[in-house]
């Protein structure tokens, strides 16, 4: 069913009886042309793009739990493309362009709100750095980057503490096309779009191993039996090391927990996404009214999908330092998700030495904004065997050849990216 105002009107008059389940719940077939492991944002988006862009519809998405139950359902929903380095710049730019047409394309309301992402600067040196970043965004073609003075920032966000003695606000770099989206709807929209094109979405189906012969992948062993496949793509960020290990892959990844928080629902108090990098803090207000905010990793490796209290305290302190008014609000919930922290802070999208086996991992804490771009380039790689031009620098061998894309310049310290 195609969603439209007319359908809502018609169903409203007829007791809402003709709405259908959004996707099927099929039994797995014995063989598919392509299998995607992981029914999160990246997996569903990849399946959708395989079907839509490349006409490959005999595809299954295997999900251990339920669709969209991993990090796509537990992030802070920020969409942006304010990256600097060659490699990241073109990729996130590509992804943002898909975001901008996603709702029409999917016929699904993903509530993309391009409300602007502001990165704050607190010294002359940092303002120079932001100017350089803004110029690089312009060179990439994202001409919405705007360097703002403290006065301009004050007009936009008068509630910030501009006179913090340690981090006075000197200005910021605004990325007007950045913003937020409804995270679950992105997963659901892609799931629906893939299902409508014939992709089987198979939930409660855990991959237990791979069948690999003569260097070629033949299929996967799952909790619901063996399923043959021509090609297998892995999009299981958070668990990439484990699934990769089943195929004999050793990855440059360490898993860390990242926490996020939401306050009670409030009337609209802030219009934009504001990131206070020096304090390890960023915040936006959801359409429901809750202030959604987060900080840094817990700083040590973890597979526990919950964080520890010291980081809660640190994030709350940073929030109070930036915008003292949030002290009046109550923190409603906090949660943690497991990040594939790669060794240079940049994702990996590549083929492997195993014919027909592809990896998509290492998203660090930037996976949400990458969902459409990642699906598009990963589907391109799986379908054609060639790297998409927006993602040809995300290869696994960059760690051997020294072509890391290290946006923060921290070297091989995954907890600091």
């Amino acid at each position, binding site marked *: 069913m195609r969603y439209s105002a007319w359908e809502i009107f018609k169903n409203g008059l007829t007791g809402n009886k003709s709405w259908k389940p959004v996707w099927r719940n099929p039994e797995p077939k014995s063989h598919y042309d392509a299998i995607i492991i992981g029914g999160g944002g990246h997996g569903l988006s990849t399946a959708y793009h395989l079907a839509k862009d490349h006409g490959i519809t005999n595809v299954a998405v295997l999900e251990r739990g339920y669709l969209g139950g991993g990090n796509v359902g537990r992030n802070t929903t920020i969409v942006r493309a304010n990256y600097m380095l060659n490699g990241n710049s073109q990729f996130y730019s590509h992804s943002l362009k898909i975001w901008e047409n996603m709702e029409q394309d999917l016929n699904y309301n993903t509530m993309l709100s391009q409300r602007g992402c502001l990165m704050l600067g607190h010294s002359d040196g940092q303002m120079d750095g932001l100017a350089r970043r803004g110029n690089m965004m312009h060179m990439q073609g994202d001409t919405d980057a705007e360097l703002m003075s403290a006065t301009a920032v004050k007009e936009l966000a008068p509630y910030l503490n501009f006179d913090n003695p340690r981090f006075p606000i000197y200005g910021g770099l605004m990325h007007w096309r950045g913003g937020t989206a409804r995270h679950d709807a992105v997963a659901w929209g892609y799931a629906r779009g893939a299902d409508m094109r014939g992709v089987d979405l198979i939930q409660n189906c855990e991959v237990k191993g791979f069948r690999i012969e003569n260097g070629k992948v033949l299929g996967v062993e799952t909790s619901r039996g063996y399923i043959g496949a021509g090609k297998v793509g892995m999009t299981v960020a958070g*668990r990439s*090391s*484990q699934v990769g290990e089943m195929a004999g892959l*050793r*990855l*440059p*990844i*360490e*898993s860390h927990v990242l926490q996020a928080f939401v306050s009670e629902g409030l009337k609209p108090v802030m219009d934009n996404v504001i990131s206070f990098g020096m304090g390890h803090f960023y915040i936006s207000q959801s359409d429901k009214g809750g202030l959604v905010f987060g900080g840094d990793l817990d*700083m*040590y*490796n*973890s*597979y*526990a999908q919950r964080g*520890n209290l*010291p980081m809660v305290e640190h994030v709350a302190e940073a929030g109070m330092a930036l915008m003292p008014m949030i002290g009046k609000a109550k923190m409603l919930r906090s949660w943690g998700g497991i990040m594939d922290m790669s*060794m240079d802070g940049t994702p990996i999208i590549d083929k492997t030495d195993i014919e027909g086996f592809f990896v998509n991992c290492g998203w660090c804490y930037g996976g949400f904004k990458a969902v459409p771009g990642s699906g598009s380039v990963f589907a391109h790689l799986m379908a054609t065997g060639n790297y998409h031009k927006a993602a040809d620098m995300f290869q696994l061998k960059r*760690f*051997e050849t020294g072509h890391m894309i290290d946006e923060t310049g921290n070297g*091989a*310290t*995954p*907890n600091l990216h």
Partner: protein
Amino acid sequence: MRINCPLCGDRDSREFHYRGSAKLLNRPNGDAGDAAFHDYVYVRENTAGVNDDLWFHENGCRSWLVVARNVTTHEINSVKLAADIKRGGK
């Protein structure tokens, strides 16, 4: 989370700084070649179970420690001085 430092006793984890896998203690020889160094610097087992990791007791005795911790439960099985391990002792 608390870490039982062999020198300082049971202390809050905030006193410690996490560095990474304890495999960093075993740096290959300079002539070991690119593959060995690639493995040493970048590749991680990243087990969803007990990992041996290097921690630095920054706000304490400033010793490097090897902490065996279950990273799914944060249960700590053992804490040893990295120096002792390098010397081959227990």
